[in-house]
């Protein structure tokens, strides 16, 4: 197994920051807001790695910094400190040392993102097929027939009815919007996919089918994934390793079955106990 991503000491501060921000926040202080300067410490000292074809879970309650992490890695936000290396066929990329054009290239060709809110991932002014076409165009596929057939193939794979391909996704159900997002993210067959609370707020039966689809894709394409969720059921079903975050810090990391059956940190114990 080969490493695809290595994250070291990632940090994100919202605010001007002061020398006391770090020691005054975190799980021990029960806050992520610095009492001295009001800065929000969304993430601090976050390190982990990810191997090819592996699904890593990031769990924690809202405000724990878990979404911030994937947004930084997908270049939606910039980190305050830290490094991330992406290992690709052509070599390795130091993600935050790249210029904007290089970052955009990786985002369009090698990464995929599925957001909790479909409005962030989809363009509601164009059709479902058009959304996929947009992503294919950004990754240099320009032949109309090829784009059309690839879009049809992707929507079929994610079980979106073909005869609705030319409709706007704003007329779709929440579950179907997520399927279009997944189809769009997969359009370039990226080796790395970020999934941010993708089933939160959906009906249980719809959730189940989306989760099954994600697992099937992982098995078919060996896509490495980072799954952000507060739902322990999703963690149990999808991931083999997980990290637990609270107030912007990683408080526990390990094999998923170990975290769920033998959690070490007081917070994880409470989390697991309240779910079972």
């Amino acid at each position: 197994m080969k490493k695809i991503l290595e994250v070291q000491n990632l940090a994100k501060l919202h605010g001007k920051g002061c020398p006391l921000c770090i020691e005054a926040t975190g799980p021990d202080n029960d806050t992520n807001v610095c009492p001295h300067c009001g800065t929000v410490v969304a993430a601090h000292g976050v390190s982990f790695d990810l191997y090819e074809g592996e699904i890593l879970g990031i769990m924690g309650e809202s405000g724990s910094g878990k979404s911030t992490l994937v947004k930084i890695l997908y270049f939606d936000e910039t980190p305050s400190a830290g490094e991330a290396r992406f290992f690709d066929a052509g070599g390795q990329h130091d993600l935050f040392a790249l210029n904007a054009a290089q970052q955009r290239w990786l985002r369009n060709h090698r990464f995929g993102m599925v957001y909790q809110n479909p409005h962030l991932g989809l363009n509601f002014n164009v059709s479902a097929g058009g959304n996929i076409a947009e992503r294919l165009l950004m990754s240099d596929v320009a032949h109309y027939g090829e784009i059309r057939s690839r879009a049809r193939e992707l929507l079929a794979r994610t079980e979106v009815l073909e005869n609705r391909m030319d409709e706007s996704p704003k007329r779709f159900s929440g579950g179907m919007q997520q399927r279009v997002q997944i189809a769009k993210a997969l359009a370039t067959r990226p080796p790395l996919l970020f999934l941010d609370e993708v089933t939160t707020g959906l009906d249980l039966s719809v959730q189940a089918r989306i989760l099954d689809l994600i697992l099937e894709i992982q098995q078919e394409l060996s896509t490495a994934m980072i799954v952000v969720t507060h739902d322990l059921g999703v963690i149990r079903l999808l991931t083999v390793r997980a990290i637990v975050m609270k107030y912007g810090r990683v408080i526990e990391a390990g094999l998923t079955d170990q975290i769920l059956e033998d959690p070490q940190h007081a917070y994880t114990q409470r989390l697991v106990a309240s779910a079972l």
Partner: protein
Amino acid sequence: MQAILSIEGLAKHFQLHEQGKLIPSCANVHLQVWPGRLTALVGPTGAGKSSVLKCVYRTYLPSAGRMRYRDAEGHEIDLAQASEHRLLALRQDEIGFVTQFLHCLPRKGAAEVVAEPLLRRGEARAAALERARDMLDRLDIPERLWNVPPATFSGGEKQRVNLARGFLARPRLLLLDEPTASLDPKTSERVIERIETLKQDGVAMLAIFHHPDLVARLADHVVELAPPMPLTETLKELTA
């Protein structure tokens, strides 16, 4: 012959932060497991037999001790210290675990569940499913259930699906936690036959049986566990 697994001074206790308690589970465990032989763990309820198996599989993090495992290449590795990725690789290729309860992906048919370890190792789908159906047949699971998700199965049927998956994966080291607990005598006999076949094939096994007869029939080595002495914290609890 060299042991495949040597456990030295293994202990496991749980620190429950919320209640401020330290719960001992097993302590001072010493045992060895050899290829083609079965080591049985015996002892009263609460002696921590299942905890030993879970520590070996690293579902539990051991609190103390060493678990020296000799892998297929002959390298020795302490399972207590091994990295997560090393353990995942060992679980995929070498170490299997059949517990009393079936944990499997929902909404997948029984044959699919049983074939899963083979598929993960990259075996061709059609061949893996064929072998899975053959193993289900050997364990007396009727053909009409092969494509049905095991969620609706009876306890005994679920346990046999679980065993079929564990047996078919043919690991080098197989951990068994009461594999015949909810089976009738006839299907128990089928399971015992499979365990004997695995032994002949050189599979090393560490097992817990609910019935002493099975220990007498199948075990080459017996390790007795005593309930661990209460730790100071629990002692305080009790005397308070």
